């Protein structure tokens, strides 16, 4: 997907002025409340008109001075921040609203499996007015996905959901979007969701795109101020069972992970805060993973130092406070021991 947006939109006390081009399929939009994320989404979908500017998707101009393609012909789906379900239709017909309007070759998404992942099968025949908050949001997600849009805009779709459900749905959203190659823009104020869902991130503040970068870089630059630090994402494969834990090949050895499973490939996250570094090999440590590595580089963020560790061909980012970096004499090229608890890894995909 190639999306170019250069647009301004002025409200009395707020003005949006963005200009960016993205060419990845999985874009994140990150920014504090009131920074203009929803407004941007509305402009792209054609629900509001820019005061001026152009919007182009895959070489097709959706908006400029002369063109303003109506929303239904943009084939851009939205999951709104507020679910906006049709009160006169039951859950099933809400879900199928967009699906029915697809040309037959676009009716590609499997209704039943989507319903199962969203855990809304028991609701199908119900009206939507008495659904719980989370149930509504799930129906809205299903409705937008089933319409198989050529770009899907998601405005904080997961914030009403509990963690378990949230990660299940993230997993499914990604799979569906990948399978049917639906590119998307994903709004969230969770850096973690951003890391999981996006390949490229637009950081917004006060109606401007203040940064366009990878989620990795955004996470690095925010590592120092973020309470969760930098999140390492590890895609690991072919585990072996070991005493109730899972051992995955990584670096020059193995990582023991308690959240592993029997899938051939799994994605894990690991916070930079969960890595403890030693100058010398520590004895009898509770952490299940202890390995030798080299410092490939360092970077500073607030009062922390990010340390890129190389272990074989694999890389990890650990973080320590400046003091510790000095004390351990960490510079590029130093050799260190890194300890990671088996429980520090979180399975996410």
């Amino acid at each position, binding site marked *: 997907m190639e999306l170019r947006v250069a647009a301004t939109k002025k409200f009395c006390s707020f003005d949006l002025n963005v200009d960016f081009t993205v060419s990845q399929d999985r874009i994140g939009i990150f920014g504090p409340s009131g920074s203009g994320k929803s407004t941007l989404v509305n402009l792209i*979908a*054609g*629900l509001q008109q820019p005061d001026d500017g152009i919007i182009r998707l895959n070489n097709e101009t959706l908006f400029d001075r002369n063109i303003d393609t*109506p*929303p*239904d*012909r*943009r*084939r*851009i*789906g*939205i999951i*709104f921040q*507020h679910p*906006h379900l*049709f*009160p*006169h239709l*039951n859950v099933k017909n809400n879900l199928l*609203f*967009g699906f029915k*309007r*697809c040309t037959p070759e676009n009716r590609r998404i499997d209704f039943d499996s989507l319903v199962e992942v969203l855990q809304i099968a028991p609701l199908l025949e*119900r*009206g939507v*007015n*008495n659904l719980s908050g989370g149930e509504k949001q799930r129906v809205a997600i299903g*409705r*937008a996905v089933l*319409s198989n*849009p050529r770009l899907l805009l998601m405005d904080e779709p997961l914030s009403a959901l509990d963690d378990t459900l949230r990660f299940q749905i993230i997993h499914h959203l990604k799979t569906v979007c990948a399978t049917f190659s639906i590119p998307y823009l994903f709004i969230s104020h969770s850096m973690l969701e951003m890391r999981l869902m996006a390949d490229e991130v637009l950081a917004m503040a006060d109606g401007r795109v203040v940064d366009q970068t990878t989620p990795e870089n955004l996470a690095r630059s925010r590592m120092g101020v973020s309470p969760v630090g930098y999140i390492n994402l590890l895609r690991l494969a072919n585990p072996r069972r070991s005493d109730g834990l899972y051992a995955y090949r990584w670096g020059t050895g193995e990582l023991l992970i308690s959240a592993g499973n029997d899938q051939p490939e799994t994605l894990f996250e690991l916070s930079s805060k969960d890595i403890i570094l030693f100058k010398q090999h520590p004895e009898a440590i509770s952490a299940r993973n202890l390995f030798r590595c080299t410092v490939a580089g360092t970077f500073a963020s607030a009062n922390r130092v990010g340390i890129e560790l190389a272990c074989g061909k694999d890389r990890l980012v650990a973080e320590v406070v400046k003091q510790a970096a000095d004390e351990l004499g960490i510079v590029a090229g130093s050799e260190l021991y890194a300890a990671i608890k088996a429980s520090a890894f979180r399975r996410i995909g």
Partner: protein
Amino acid sequence: MPEFTSAEYTAILLSLKVSIVATLLSLPFGFSAAYVMTYRKFRGKFVLDLIVNLPLTLPPVVIGYILLVVLGQNGVIGKQILQPLGIKLIFTWKAAVIATAVVGFPLLVRSIRIGMETIDQGLVQASRTLGAGWFDTVMTVILPLSLRGVIAGSALMFARGLGEFGATIIVAGNIPGVTQTIPLAIYEYASSPDGDRMALALCVVSVVISVVVLLFHEYLSRRMIRVD
């Protein structure tokens, strides 16, 4: 209750027929007018608003007169369009339908508009982004969501039609068995010295019909609130 003669029965049936046909006929136009006035911006919107609402402001007799002038033998439409087609409207029950439709139209449109104006725009937007074109959206989202207004408006219009007198009597004439509706019959009885009881009996019929209509309306409205 006095005995009704066949003339009265005919009047009752005719009244029902006229009101129903007028209401059904007006529905698509009323809905379109309401839609256009609620959602579209265009020049001359105010003029449309005015035309729709005129029949309300003018005494029905005047409307009857205007219709007669327009649709009659020498009228613009009467002469140019109806006569060449061989259609005779004036003094037929169709004229009563037209009179009823014109008089009730503003009520219908206004009711539908109130219902429409309160539709959450988010739903309309959702529908558009799900690939429904504007007409599709009108039919599958806006129409069902303004159904309360449509039903209330139809009930209003139907009831108003049952009582329509001033305009009908002018364009349709008061021809027993042909164009004499309940109100015309009531008028006739009420204005003869000993027709009071008959007039009253016909009033009761009117009331009964509207009870039925109201019950039906309430039933429809209630069905629309999905209880689940």
